[in-house]
Structure formats: C-alpha cells, structure tokens
C-alpha cells in the first residue's frame, strides 16, 4: 500500500520539426513574452517607480512625508472611508453575487444568456454607468420619482451624493468580478459529490453548507480579493455619485496632483499600493483561505 496518486506533470509541446536544443526550450517562453515585458517595463514599471520615489526624495531624501501621515487627520479619515467602503462593497457583491454564481453554474442551456446579462454592463464604460446611476439616484431621478408617484414618499429621498450612492453604484460595477470566479469554481465541483452527499443523507441545505460552500471557497477568496483591491482604488464612481465630504484615498490623490503637491500624492499612492499588497499577502496566509487556494479539486 505504498502507491500514492501521482500528479500529472505539465508538458509544453513545442511543435518544431527538429528537436529544439535545451537552451532554446528554456528561452522560448521568455522571448515570446519579451515585447510585452519591455512595454510594461517602459510604460508601467518605470513611471510607477519614479512616482513612488517622489514620496521619499522630494525635495530631498526623507521619510518625513510618511511620518507626517500618522497625525494627518484628513488622511486618516480618508483612509478609513476607503477601507469602510471597500468592505461594504465586497460584502454586498458577495451576498448578491453568490446566488447568481450558483444559478450560472447550474444552468445548462441558459448559461450563455445569463453570462451575457452579467457581462453586458461590464462592456459599458464605468463613466457611462456612473452617469446612469446619477440619473437613477438623483433628487428628481427615476427612483425618487417612482416612489413619489406611488405615494410611498412625500418628499424625495437624498441618495445621490451620499456614501450609500457610492456603495450601490460600486456594488453594481464590481459584481462580475465576484460572480465569475465563484461560478467558475462551482462549475468545477464534481456533480457526483453532490449526489454522494444526498445519497449519504444530507438534505439540500446541508449539502450546500458542508460540500458546495467549502469547495467553492477558492472562488470566493479570489472574488473577495479582486473586488476588495479594485474597490480600494476606485475613483470615478465615488467622485461622481459620492458625498462631497466622503472623500476616498484615490480622490485625495487626484486632488493633490491637481494642486501639484506631488510628494504628498506619491506618499498616498504608496500607502494605497502597500495596503492592496498587504491584503493579498494576508489572504494567502489565512488558514482557511490559504488551504482553499492551494486545494486540489479532484
């Protein structure tokens, strides 16, 4: 009983007539990616690096910009609002997206249709969608007009330019990033596991709780990470539909750049980037999520 299931090794077939030499085999993937790598280096890595450098060498080499953040009330409030919004948006997309993902994974003939319905807004500009939310949520917007017309309200609700408007619009825009990874993991769950659970006496709810939900955790982890990190850096939507006093980190950065306050903007950018990286690193280390991310599905 020493035999252990072997994992398949990845083989990249190189369809050359002559067997390529060993050096070529190793170099080929890097060469193929070279144009993109050079592009990213010149137009992404270098600008980001030079921007980040400004946070420590403008006007002289110093860490005072970072030290100053500790009792900078504007920054602390902004940072708190950014994290708070991201958490709410992530929870909102998870609660609304999981059932949709479940439906998408179970659908057979209607799956392409559901997918198109999910992706249709995805292919529309964020700017356009944010404007659309302004039309819907405004003081004389569709929602208020409808509520007034039915007599449920006597005076219009103030939704636009509140944190709630930001949250509603961001949840809508970020939903596909939550649905797609979850649906993808759900679809990979072997249907015989669900049958086995049912045959062994688990009711549909218990099958969901004890089999489907834990097996979909890699997708949930991916969706949560994706949405949270994207929400951290969201700019257009909170700027357009959010409240004037509820400024997010990305809005503060834009404001500082407008005022040519480059060092401060660079420091804030570094903080935003570090926060995103720290969250990705932390998520991988969480025992439950880490296990889920590493888990072999078969």
């Amino acid at each position, binding site marked *: *009983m020493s035999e252990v299931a072997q994992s398949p090794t990845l083989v990249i077939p190189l369809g050359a007539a002559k067997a390529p030499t060993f050096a070529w085999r190793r170099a080929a993937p890097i060469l193929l990616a070279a144009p993109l790598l050079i592009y990213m280096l010149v137009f992404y890595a270098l600008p980001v690096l030079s921007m980040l450098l400004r946070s420590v060498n403008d006007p002289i080499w110093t860490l005072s910009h970072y030290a100053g953040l500790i009792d900078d009330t504007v920054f602390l409030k902004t940072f708190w609002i950014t994290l708070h919004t991201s958490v709410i948006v992530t929870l909102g997309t998870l609660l609304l997206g999981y059932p949709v993902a479940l439906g998408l994974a179970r659908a057979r003939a209607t799956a392409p249709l559901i997918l198109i319905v999910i992706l249709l807004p995805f292919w529309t500009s964020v700017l356009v969608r944010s404007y659309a939310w302004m039309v819907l949520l405004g003081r004389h917007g569709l929602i208020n007009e409808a509520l007034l017309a039915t007599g449920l309200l006597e005076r219009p609700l103030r939704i636009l330019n509140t944190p709630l408007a930001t949250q509603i619009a961001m949840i809508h825009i970020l939903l596909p990033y939550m649905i797609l990874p979850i649906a993808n993991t759900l679809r990979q769950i072997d249907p015989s596991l669900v049958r086995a659970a049912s045959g062994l006496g688990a009711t549909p709810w218990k099958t969901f709780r004890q089999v489907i939900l834990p097996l979909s955790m890699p997708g949930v982890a991916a969706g949560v990470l994706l949405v949270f990190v994207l929400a951290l850096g969201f700019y257009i939507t909170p700027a357009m539909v959010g409240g004037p006093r509820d400024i997010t980190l990305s809005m503060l950065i834009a404001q500082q750049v407008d005022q040519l306050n480059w060092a401060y903007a660079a420091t804030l950018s570094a903080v935003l980037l570090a926060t995103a990286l720290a969250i990705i690193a932390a998520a991988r280390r969480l025992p439950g999520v880490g296990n889920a991310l590493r888990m072999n599905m078969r």
Partner: protein
Amino acid sequence: MNGPGRGASVSLAGLEKTFDRVSAVDGVSLDIRSGEFLTLLGPSGSGKTTTLMMIAGFEMPTAGDIAIDGKSVVAMPPYRRNIGMVFQNYALFPHLTVEENIGFPLKQRGVPKAERVKLVGEALELVHLPGYGARYPRQLSGGQQQRVALARAIVFQPRLLLMDEPLGALDKQLRENLQLEMRRLHADLGITFIYVTHDQEEALTMSDRIAVMNDGKVAQVGRPEDLYDRPSSRFVAGFIGESNFLPAIVRGMEDDVVVAECKGVLIRALCPVRPASGAKIMLTTRPERLRFADGGWNATTAQNRLIVTVTEAVFAGERCRYMLQAADGTSMVLKEPSSAAIRRRTVGEQAEIAWSVADTILVEAGLV
C-alpha cells in the same frame, strides 16, 4: 412485506426512463431478495446505470414503481432513502479527511461525536485502513480511496448498498483483491448489494444472481451458472463468455431434445420450446466444451460431431485455442486444457470434434 434479514428487498415494476424522448430504461421488472448480491450486467448504454440511479433516487422514473421492503420510494428524495452508494470515481469529499468523509453520513443522522469516532474506527478496520483517518483523499491511492468510499457507504448500516462500477478505474490485480473483499463484506454484513458492471467475469465471480441488460430491458435473470450454461438468447450467449453459433434447420424432436441439421450433419440440442419441423433455429455451444474426438477423451456421451479444418492454433499457457472451419465456411472456436501429453494440432489439419447434447442450447427459434 418486510424482509426478515438485515438486507432490504427491492422490487422494480415496469420501470421506464426516457431522456429527451430517447428511451434509456424500457420496462424493467425485477425482484431482488433480502440479502442478495445482484449484479446488473450489460454493455454501455444498456440502461444498467440509469436503473441504479433511479433506485438511489438521483433519477426520477418516467413510469413504473420502485419499492424497498414493499414500500414505494419513487416520491422520496435520495437523502431520505437510507441507501449506501459507491460511485465509480469514488466521489470522496476532497476538503474532508478520511475520518470526516466516513463520518459524513453519521453527522447527517445526528450521531453524537463520541459514537461517530467509534463507528468510523470500526469501518476503517473493516476495509483494512486503520490509521488512515487523518489523511486527505488525494493522499491515497485509487484502491485506498475506493475502500474509504466503501466504508463511508456502510458505516451508517444501510440495508441496501448500491455500487456503480466501483472497480472500473483500478488495475486488474487490485480489482481481484477488492472483489474478494466485497464478497466477504457482503457475507459479513448480510445486507442487499446491487452491483453494476460491464465486466462479465466480475459479475460471474461475485454475484448470487445476475440480471443481464440490453437496450434498456432485462434480457435474462439467473444464477451465474444458469446464465452461462443456459443462455436464453443469442445476446446473453454472446455477452457472457465466448460462444459458437450454429445455424440449423429443425428435423424433429426427441422428448425435450431437438434434432436439427447443421452443416450437413444432425446436431442434438436441449430445447425448452417445440419448434416446427423445417424451422430455422440458432444453436450455441461454448468453446471449452468442444473436444477433438480422437483426443483420448471419452466420446460416448458426446453425441454431436462435426468434421472441421484447423485454421489457427494459439498456445495460451493454461490452454490451447484453436480456430476451426466447417465444410460450409462457418468458423468455430475450441479451447483445450493444455498438457504436454496431448498432441497439439497444426494449421491445415482435418479433425473431428465432438461435444455433448447438454452443452448445446437453442438460443433462437423460428428464424425465417
């Protein structure tokens, strides 16, 4: 009508299932006794797995009834049927340890933790995997995974165990070991087993009874030796073991023996029906029941004889296998136990073969 034993009795009545107007199971009626090891045997697409899935409750019958211990279960969801089930791909939960996998059905039934640990331990002993409880399924070999699946299916003491080609993915030696273990488990537990396979050898060695399925119907039900010695149709004769088929024309009856003309000679065969004289029939006989008439073998009981030419001779260790051709061109197979004392035939040699009436069966009557 509760069965007196530890096993459930299962009764299928006129069971039908159609998928998108294509019939998968077409009128299966079968009574499975309490404590029996019954195998559904058939080629792929014969409806055996669909029948099993309907018993388990994963498929809803289009028509007909399924009764367990005399009570119809058609309207009952799978999780209330209390049936053990083993799948071909094991279907172990990858996120649970071996212990948690086996404890799963107990947890659903609200068995307290301490009791659960004890029962899981016993089940692991039963499948010879003590000490493996803390591992994850992916850390086990295919054979070990199937043992865990087996333990999980019996730990809650169901009265009926369903198995869908459980050994299909394993290599030959492991398969034979597990076949023996399943026989032993069946004897120990005394519960009813319904086993699905396309492997006729597996079906013959393990089952109390076999139901041979073809085209969504039960072609024949019986003990393994009945099916092998008395196939009721050409399909069963061809599917279980190897068979020679001899087309013949009825010339008369002697009690329950039909005398038929085949390749210019008279052949006698056991015959449950009374075909009319002149009717075209199909006779069958097994390759290992044919003998060379001059092979030093007592030929007095072997009434059926035929002159043939050897067209192929293969030495296969424990036996020799000969392809023979009769005068009219039809080919037959003869298997002879090998012995250094028996002269081996050479290709092109003419020989007389002989076999007994009891080993000749009519499988088709009234061919036009």
